[in-house]
C-alpha cells in the first residue's frame, strides 16, 4: 500500500548526471548512512549502509551542481526493487561474484551541508511533481 525511506547520510563520491532520450536529467549517487551503538560487551559498534540514489528533473541538476563527495543530504524516497522478485536486484560483477544494492528514487532532497564545503547554500527543495510516477521504471533503462 505504501512505503517510504528517509535517509540522512554523506555522498561516497561525486554525483553523475545523465540525460534520458527525451532530455530528462537524472543524477545518480551513493550515500552512506552510518549508525553507532554500544554492544552488550560495552564496545562501540558501527554499521554503514550504502544506498544508490537517483534524482530526477530539476532536482537532478541541482544535485549535480551543488553536491560532491562528502556532502551531507537528507533523502526522502522510495525503494526501487527488481520487478521480477519484489526484492533487491541481484547483479553479477565482472569477476563473476554476485552483488545487490538498495536503490532509491528520491522524492525530496535537502542539502544539509558537507564536510567543510559550501554546498549548504544549494536550493535543495524540490517538489514531488519533479519525479515522474514512472521514474523507477524508466531508470532501469539507464546504463550504469
Amino acid at each position: 500500500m505504501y512505503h517510504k525511506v528517509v535517509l540522512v547520510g554523506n555522498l561516497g563520491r561525486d554525483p553523475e548526471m545523465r540525460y534520458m532520450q527525451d532530455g530528462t536529467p537524472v543524477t545518480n549517487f551513493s550515500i552512506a548512512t552510518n549508525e553507532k551503538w554500544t554492544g552488550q560487551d560495552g564496545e562501540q559498534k558501527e554499521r554503514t549502509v550504502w544506498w544508490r540514489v537517483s534524482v530526477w528533473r530539476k532536482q537532478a541538476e541541482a544535485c549535480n551542481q551543488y553536491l560532491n563527495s562528502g556532502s551531507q543530504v537528507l533523502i526522502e524516497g522510495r525503494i526501487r526493487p527488481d520487478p521480477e522478485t519484489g526484492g533487491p536486484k541481484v547483479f553479477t560483477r565482472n569477476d563473476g561474484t554476485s552483488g545487490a544494492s538498495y536503490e532509491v528514487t528520491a522524492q525530496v532532497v535537502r542539502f544539509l551541508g558537507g564536510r567543510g564545503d559550501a554546498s549548504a547554500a544549494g536550493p535543495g527543495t524540490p517538489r514531488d511533481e519533479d519525479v515522474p510516477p514512472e521514474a523507477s521504471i524508466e531508470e532501469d533503462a539507464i546504463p550504469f
Partner: protein
Amino acid sequence: MRQTIFLAGNLGRDPELRYTPNGTAMSRLSVATNEKWSGQDGQLQERTIWWRVSVWGKQAENVSQYLKKGSQVFIEGRMDSDPETGGPRLWKGSDGSDRASYEIIARVVKFTGQRGGGASFEPSDKDIPPEAFF
C-alpha cells in the same frame, strides 16, 4: 546519519515466532507493499515489494498472537544490511541462484487491519537487542 523505513502492507504468511537462546522473543513477518500508478501511456502499473521484517521482545509475541496471513500492518524500522558490504545480504535460493531481500528490524508495529481493531505496540528500545537496533 540515520535511516528510517516506513511500510504499510499486508502479511504474505503467518508470523513465525522464535526465541533466542537467552529467551528473547523474535517474530519474522513477510510484508508486501503493493503500489499502483498510471503510466505515461495511461495504463495502470503495479509494483509489489516484499519485506522481511523482524520484531523483537514483547512486541514479537503480540505480533504472533494477533497477526496472520493477510493482516494489514504499519511498520517503522530500519534496513538491516550485510555488515560486510553495507548492502543487502545474499543467500542461495532453492535453485542455487543468489537472492537478496529487504530485511527490516521493526521499531514500531501498528495493527491497522480490520480484523480485531487497531491495537498498536510501541516497544521500549530495551526489547530489542543492541545488536539488532541502533
